[in-house]
């Protein structure tokens, strides 16, 4: 039974691609649906759920930041998907999934996606047509890109963010792809890396990029007191936060089960494990936060849900249900502690992106070394986890994978943000930041409760319109 896109040399014998082949098609009795069609349709539906996550990210980030920059954060989320997909179509896909190039440092197949318009093209993966496979991978690329906007919210120039999002989807994320799911060196180790649906490949890429962005930008004005102690800047709408988290929850049922890249019996397993890990993350984050702060913070519970989901994304194919609960629960506890840690270290991440995607993504990837018992295509064997007697081999590989990824992402995105800072500039002026980015960067406030005759005389009660300081 096919699990995940098999990678590297000779890992998998691709099933005969009957879909467009008249001869093969005749082998199917009249009226029998082909597995190929079903695989493609299922992955397509899963991808739609993954694209829906864009709305989830946008809402969580908007809700956790201030009303005066809400248009800006929505725009960034919109555009890193829109521009990111085009960048991935023209350049990134080829780097991620092309033939080996540059001595294996990354892949290259020329611009664009080979066979994308050809309904009879050889499958790009398992039974998936090039179009389906691109569709799915583009949604993942957009996810990796969009994580960063939250951590850099309320102070980043739109133009600079736009440049960043083009570079990450056309270059940085694709190189990571080429090393891993693209079949590159990390998948060719004796004990290959394992990351079923991208705790590290997708989420930690976004998470560590977010960390570099937040550090290089510096905190929002007023976030730290003169004594350096963190101050509270409340998000403007908990409704948006929870709605966004629930949309992400839904989307994750495309993200993880869809990563099977086939419609098979493992898919429901993946859904259940995704579900229970998310639930455990939310409940434990709430309880830990309750214990620490005497009250259950709503936004931390939402972060906990996402933490559980990110954590289980890597191990989801290899673990039992009880382990999914444990992994999600640890993710939920971690995110509460990690948000405090970064907040107190002077890293101003209004939405907790570094903690949710970077820290929990890393935890999830590491957790495979302990809890893996089922074979998914990346592991190539059963009982790889320490708890099942798999030895420390997988732990070493996972650690290496995490480390290499961390160094690569922090260095490349660090250089990218510094380069942007030196050239077009990364941060808006103090005046703009105080007034909010909406009017200054986009020409209109995000909210308006103007009652007049359309002349803008009493706009945006309670929402700052720009102020010339």
């Amino acid at each position, binding site marked *: 039974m096919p699990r995940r896109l098999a990678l590297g040399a000779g890992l998998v014998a691709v099933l005969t691609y009957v879909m467009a082949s008249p001869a093969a098609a005749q082998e199917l009795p009249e009226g029998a649906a082909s597995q190929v069609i079903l695989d493609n349709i299922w992955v397509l539906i899963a991808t739609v759920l993954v694209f829906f996550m864009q709305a989830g990210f946008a809402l969580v980030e908007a809700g956790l930041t201030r009303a005066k920059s809400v248009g800006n954060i929505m725009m960034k989320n919109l555009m890193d998907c829109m521009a990111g997909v085009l960048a991935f179509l023209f350049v990134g896909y080829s780097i991620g999934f092309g033939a080996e190039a540059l001595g294996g440092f990354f892949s290259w197949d020329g611009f664009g996606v080979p066979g994308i318009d050809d309904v009879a093209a050889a499958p790009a993966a398992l039974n998936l047509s090039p179009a389906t496979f691109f569709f799915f991978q583009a949604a993942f690329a957009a996810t990796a890109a969009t994580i960063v906007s939250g951590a850099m919210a309320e102070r980043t120039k739109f133009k600079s963010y736009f440049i960043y999002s083009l570079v990450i989807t056309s270059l940085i994320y694709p190189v990571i792809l080429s090393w891993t799911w693209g079949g590159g060196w990390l998948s060719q180790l004796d004990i290959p890396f394992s990351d079923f649906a991208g705790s590290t490949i997708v989420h930690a890429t976004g998470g560590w990029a977010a960390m570099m962005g937040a550090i290089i930008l510096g905190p929002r004005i007023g976030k730290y007191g003169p004594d350096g102690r963190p*101050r*509270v800047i409340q998000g403007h709408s908990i409704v948006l936060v929870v709605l966004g988290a629930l949309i992400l929850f839904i989307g994750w049922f495309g993200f993880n089960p869809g990563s099977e890249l086939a419609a098979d019996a493992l898919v429901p397993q993946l859904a259940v494990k995704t579900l229970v890990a998310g639930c455990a993350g939310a409940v434990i984050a709430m309880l830990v936060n309750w214990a*620490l702060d*005497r009250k259950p913070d709503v936004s931390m519970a939402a972060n906990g849900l996402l933490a559980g989901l990110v954590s289980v994304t890597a191990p989801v194919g290899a673990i039992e249900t009880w382990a999914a609960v444990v992994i999600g629960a640890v993710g939920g506890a971690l995110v*509460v502690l990690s948000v*405090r840690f970064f907040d107190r270290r002077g890293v101003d991440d209004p939405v*907790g992106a570094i903690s949710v995607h970077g820290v929990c993504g890393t935890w999830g990837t590491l957790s495979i070394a302990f809890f893996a018992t089922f074979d998914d295509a990346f592991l190539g064997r059963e009982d790889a986890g320490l708890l099942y007697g798999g030895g420390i081999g997988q732990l070493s590989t996972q650690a290496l994978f995490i480390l290499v990824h961390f160094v690569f992402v922090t260095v490349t995105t660090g250089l990218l943000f510094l380069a942007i800072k030196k050239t077009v500039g990364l941060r808006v002026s103090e005046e703009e930041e105080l007034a909010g980015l909406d009017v200054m960067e986009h020409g209109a406030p995000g909210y308006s409760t103007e009652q007049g005759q359309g002349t803008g005389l009493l706009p945006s009660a309670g929402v700052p319109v720009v102020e010339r300081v």
Partner: protein
Amino acid sequence: MQLITAVIKPHALDAVKDALKAIGVSGLTVSEVRGFGRQGGHTETYRGTEYTIDFVPKAKVEVLVDGMDADKVVDTIASAAQSGKIGDGKIWVTEVGRAVRIRTGEQGSDAI
């Protein structure tokens, strides 16, 4: 002519309006404000960081009176808005020189 300004608890507004209506006050203007005073200052935690809520929501009521005894209006508001608990608010009275009803241009007590 006098302007009576009262800062009261939001949920007392209903009672204040009814009481003023009962003594014949024909109009008033209300706005949402935030008050800082003896009542204030409790500490909460948001995403792991403590903060203090200094300002509490209040309603500000403004009533322009003439002819009618301003003291009566003040007392009426005071008794309608009183819960006896801290933060019930303040009332103050200022002198008004001129008043106009925009619709008709009426002046002084006719304006109210």
